[in-house]
Each structure stands twice: as C-alpha cells, then as structure tokens.
C-alpha cells in the first residue's frame, strides 16, 4: 500500500531501573486507524514519545515512512502529533500560537485559519489559550498537529477532556482522515473509545506488545472487546496470540 506508515521494531526504554517499554514491535498502516490500547502505565506514552524523537530509546527503531522522526526533512509536514507534553502558552491567542508554529514548521501562515475550521476553533482564534477549557485545548492541539497537512497523525489519549459529542466528532474526523489514505495512530486506555473508531489494534501491557491485528480478529478472542482485552492483559492470559496474519507476535513469549 502506498503512503507513509509507522514501523516500530524492538523499542525498549528503562526509567530509573524500571522497564517502561520492552521490545515493542508493531506497525500502523496508511488508510487505517490504529488503536494503541493498554492499561495505565503500560508504556503507551513512552512508546509514542520515542516514535516522535522526544525520548531516546535504549534499543530498537521507530520509523515514519522508513525514516526516524528526527531525520525527516519536513517533520511537522509529515507527522502531526497530539501529546500531553506538547502544550500552548496560556498568554498567547490561539491564532498567535498557530501562526508561531506555522513559522517554526515552515508552513504558510494561512494554514492557521485553515486548520481552525475542521477542528471547530474558528470562533475562538482570538481568545487567549489560558481561557480555554480542556476540551478546547485538545482541539487546539489537534489543530496544531494539522498545520503541516501531515500524512501521519499520532495522538496520545486525544479524547481526554472532550465531552461525548466531542468524542464522536473526533472519531468521525480521524476516520475521514484515514479514509483519505493517511495513517492514524491513537492511544487510549478506554476500551469503548476504540471500539467504534479503529480498524487495527495494538495491545501493550507492562511495556510489551501482546497483540497486533485487526479489531475484528481481536474481538474474535472473546465475546466482547472487554473480555478479549482482559485476556491479553491479565497475568493468566495466554501469550500465544495471533498477529494480524494469524502468526505469533515476535518477542511475545508463550
């Protein structure tokens, strides 16, 4: 399939003697929304930060279109990211914030207004970010991620702070984004959030990827998504899960 995909292979990171991520391997494909699911503290955020060059891995590689993030010619024109460690200055207006990051990323200033429309912040562009609700900040983060019209979107728990209508809006938005041939990778610890919004699922538990494949294959492992999730995140869970093609996942012990 053409397009820019995400390839993560053997990523590992230790913080203060604790394995945050161990041998994480998975792919996210163009044209599909990939959910990155795992319990709190499973290593989702650390993995995404390693993918985006914010945290240096102890081992492994994370490539976007075959290139590490830091080596991309046009990073923000290739990948847009929504992370909790990437914020906006409260004293700036949303327009000022978006224009500043247009300049920093080398994108046309008019993109600031262009991304405001689909993210629903057009009416708030001249308000200071400090007055924004959590949900509005999330929309601004998404708008910032879209400034370079990227081929890949990476989102860490993007629906935090969104109301139910906002969650539905985000799901629809991401689906449409992927439908245009682009890659969407989003993490969540909320099962129901991913139930209707993703095509593929990568499950991470205690720093290790325990399942990768399509959502349909995953739910086939239990009567519900919840049951399948518990199967693959519990200590008693069998660790011989099939991959997307039905093959065992490399690095996952039986």
């Amino acid at each position, binding site marked *: 399939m053409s397009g820019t995909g995400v390839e993560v292979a053997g990523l590992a990171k230790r913080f203060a003697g604790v394995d945050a991520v161990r041998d994480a391997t998975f792919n996210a494909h163009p044209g599909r929304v990939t959910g990155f699911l795992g319990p709190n503290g499973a290593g989702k955020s650390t993995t995404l930060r390693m993918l*985006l060059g914010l945290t240096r891995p102890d081992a492994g590689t994370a490539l976007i279109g075959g290139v590490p993030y*830091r080596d991309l010619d046009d990073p923000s024109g290739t990948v847009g990211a929504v992370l909790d460690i990437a914020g906006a200055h*409260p004293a700036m207006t949303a327009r000022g914030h978006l224009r500043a990051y247009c300049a920093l990323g080398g994108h046309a200033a008019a993109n600031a207004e262009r991304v405001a429309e689909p993210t629903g912040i057009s009416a708030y562009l001249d308000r200071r970010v400090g007055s924004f609700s959590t949900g509005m900040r999330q929309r601004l983060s998404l708008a910032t991620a879209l400034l370079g019209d990227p081929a890949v979107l990476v989102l860490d728990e993007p629906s935090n702070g969104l109301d139910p209508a906002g969650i539905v809006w985000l799901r629809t938005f991401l689906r449409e984004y992927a439908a245009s041939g682009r890659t969407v990778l989003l993490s969540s610890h909320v099962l129901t959030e991913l139930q209707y919004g993703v095509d593929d699922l990568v499950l991470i538990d205690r720093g290790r990827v325990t399942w990768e494949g399509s959502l349909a294959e995953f739910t086939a492992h239990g009567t519900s998504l919840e049951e399948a999730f518990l199967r693959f995140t519990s200590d008693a869970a069998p660790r011989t899960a099939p991959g997307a093609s039905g093959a065992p996942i490399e690095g996952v012990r039986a």
Partner: protein
Amino acid sequence: MNRLIRGEFAKLLGTRLPMWTLVIAACSGGGLTGLLALIGPENATPPLPGLDTAEGVGIVVGMSGLLLFAPALIGTIAVTSEYRHRTIGTTFLTAPRRGRVLAAKLVVFGVLGVAYGVVASLFAGGAVALGAAVQGVEIGVPPLVLVMLLVRLSLAAAVYMILGVAIGALARHQLLAVGIVVGYFYFLEHVLMIIPGVNAIHPYLPEGATAALTDFTFLSDAIAEQLPLASAAPTSPMIGALVLLAYAAAAACIAVAVPLRRDLR
C-alpha cells in the same frame, strides 16, 4: 535556521514578555539612575562625586548595572516557561533538531537583551541629562564618552539575558532557575567579593567583569574602605567585555548541548 528564528520570534512576540521586558528596562535604566541623578550624587549619604565629574556620571550610570540580574531573570523565566507550559514539547515536535532550535532561541533572546540594554541605556542617559539640567551643571563627560558607556551597558544586558537563558535551559524548573539567578547575582557574587583570597577572582566573575566594562567600581571601592582586605583591582573595560562574551559563549554552548539528549517526559 531562518525559519526557526522567525518561529521563535513569533512565539516570543505572541506573549506579553517583550512588553514587560521593555517596561522593566525603562524602570531599571531610569529608576535608580534617575533617582540618584535628580537628588544629585553629592547630596547622597555618603556624598558622591557630582554629575559634573566623570566619576559621578560613571557611578550614576553604573547603578543601572546593579540591576542587570533583571535581564538574566527574564531570559530564565522565558525558557523555563517553555517547560512549565509544555510548549517545549510542541516546539521539539515541530522542529526535532534541538540544537538548531536552541541556537535560534539564543539569537532571539540576544536581540531581546540588546533591546533591553538600549531602552535601559536611553532611560539612564536621559536621567543623567535631566539630573544635570535640574541641578544646572554640565555633564562631566563628553557626549560620546557617555554614549559609549551606555553602549557597554547594553552589551552587558544582552550577555546577562543569554546567561539567564542558559541557566533556564539547564535548570528547567522555574522556581529553581529563578533561585539560582537571584541567589547568584544578588548574594553569592557579593559574598565572594569579601572573602579574602577568593575575591581575587571577582574581576573575572560576571558582575566583576561588568563592573570593569562599565567602569563601575563603586561597590568594590566601598567594600575596600570598610574591610581590612585588599580589593581585587578590576580589569580593563576591554578584558571585562571579553570575559563577559566568553561567559555568553560558554552559556550558549551549554544551553544548546545539554538539552540535546535529554528525554522529554
């Protein structure tokens, strides 16, 4: 690199920091200097040389130098705000080659430092002229000498701003960084000035070098009068300038190099 500098300028100009920087510069340049110039240095306790002497002009202008920790503090607060508000994450996502981002930041804050220095100098120069006019005396130095003194003060302000940026980039935590800046410039360097033996290195510390650059030896002279120890003689203005530029260069290298490999968490 140009787009990074433009981006960093846009980030800076989107906040109120430049406005407050210039307000603080006007206050620091016009405040202490203006007060001393208006009441007349010879009316101070103890009496100081008047504005009609070169020494008096040097002391009055040099008073602004005592507030040079302000640009350092502004640089520190600006950089630590990036960590506090997590804009550093957005910045490194947009431009992941961190060395270039931090170099662009240093250029931008160097310019802000010069702007601070120019505004502070204009107000200090204005205060001297106003003070001399009020007292009906001629300024004790030719205009060019006064301008050069003010230019040197501007240079020192830019260097202090860069020192502040470097301290902020290293410490990251805002309170800690502010504590380091205030603790060092307000306390530690003054303590070092009065420790026998150690005070010999004072002319080569930032404040000592600034005193040499601006010919401001008022504090070290006062200490020498009060304490039975030999005051370390200040270096020449040129060496003072070189020492300050060396500090700025070292600070810039540290500010660029240290965050390169640090994980953002």
